[in-house]
């Protein structure tokens, strides 16, 4: 094993593991599934890195893989998971489980409503809002991840926001 690449991978993992897990978790709402997908994200990233591929933008690549795996997951399941914070559960676990995330007080209140409504809009809108507002990706990074032109990404964010607003 190439020790330099391994160390590079460790640094990248430490820098982005929480963000990638959060992104996936907000999209699938189930801890063990989020773990499995996050695991696959980093494993695919490692395969690219250890295969000699030069990775200039690790964050963009990680989100590209994560986005692809989440899309694949929903394509396979062919149904949209509905989210609720308290009574209803998804795959046996609350959408914002305090067993997984810090800050219990917030999880139960207003953010919960936003996240629940977010889960009811189109998946590409969910990705756009989560990437832009939660994960802090810029439009150019998102354009590469989503394989769209920058203008198209701006339009996507605008439409996603408008759709979510109408749901609230």
């Amino acid at each position, binding site marked *: 094993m190439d020790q330099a690449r*391994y160390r590079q991978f460790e640094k990248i993992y430490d820098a982005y593991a929480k963000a990638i897990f*959060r992104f996936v978790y*907000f999209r699938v709402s189930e801890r063990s599934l989020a*773990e499995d997908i*996050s695991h696959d994200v980093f494993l695919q990233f490692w395969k690219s890195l250890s295969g000699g591929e030069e990775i200039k933008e690790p964050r963009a690549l990680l989100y590209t893989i994560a986005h692809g795996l989440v899309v694949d997951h929903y394509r*396979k399941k062919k149904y949209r998971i509905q989210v609720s914070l308290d009574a209803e559960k998804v795959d046996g676990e609350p959408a914002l489980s305090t067993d*997984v995330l*810090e800050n219990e007080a917030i999880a139960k209140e207003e*953010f919960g409503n936003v996240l629940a409504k977010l889960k009811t809009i189109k998946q590409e809108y969910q990705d756009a809002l989560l990437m832009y*507002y939660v994960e802090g990706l810029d439009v150019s990074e998102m354009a590469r991840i989503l394989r769209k032109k920058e203008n198209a990404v701006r339009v996507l964010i605008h439409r996603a926001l408008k759709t979510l607003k109408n749901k609230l």
Partner: protein
Amino acid sequence: MNDNRLIQLLEGLKKFEPKEKTISALRGKVFSSVEHVGSARMPAPRIGSTRSAVRFLSRPIFLYPAAALLLVGVITAQGSWPINKFQAAYLETRMALASNGYEKASLSLRLAELELGNAESAGNGSARQIAYLSNVTLETNRYMSDLHLVGEPGKYSSGQCLAAYKEYDGYLDELKAAISAGLTTAGDPSLRADLSALLDQANQYQSAANVKLKLY
């Protein structure tokens, strides 16, 4: 709700961070898999390895002639056909034909248990046996790591995955006990080094397996 308030709420979702225990569990799983990928790129020398034969057998066109050749080859080489070798060949052929990861993991685990039983009944372990056990355990761990805890529709359930992990954990316990027993009797330094390396391997896999088991 106006746009600014909505944006503020969306940006507020950044405050949610996974708990440390979740990330450390994920880390164990990721790095365990990464090390296996690394090992797969630079495999240890395999003595008596049958994986290439399995890959060859997985091509249906070659299946029957290859199986016949395997039978003839082993019978010719050994003059007899020990029952355990029959079982191992049978399991490896079934693995080659298995349609999903769960089946492969279960069969690989049975093969590992069989090989451990063979090694134990043979008494003092040889370098060859240790290398083979190391390989078969590595393969089993790779298949187990690929299983999804929540199961896969039409393939296996979450409960089956849990049962497989428990059995795997039991196998690793048995392997570790056998290695410890071997270490108390082995005098040859190189054999002791091989046994210690296998013990490290088993410990590492069991840590990763326990991380998975704790998630249930």
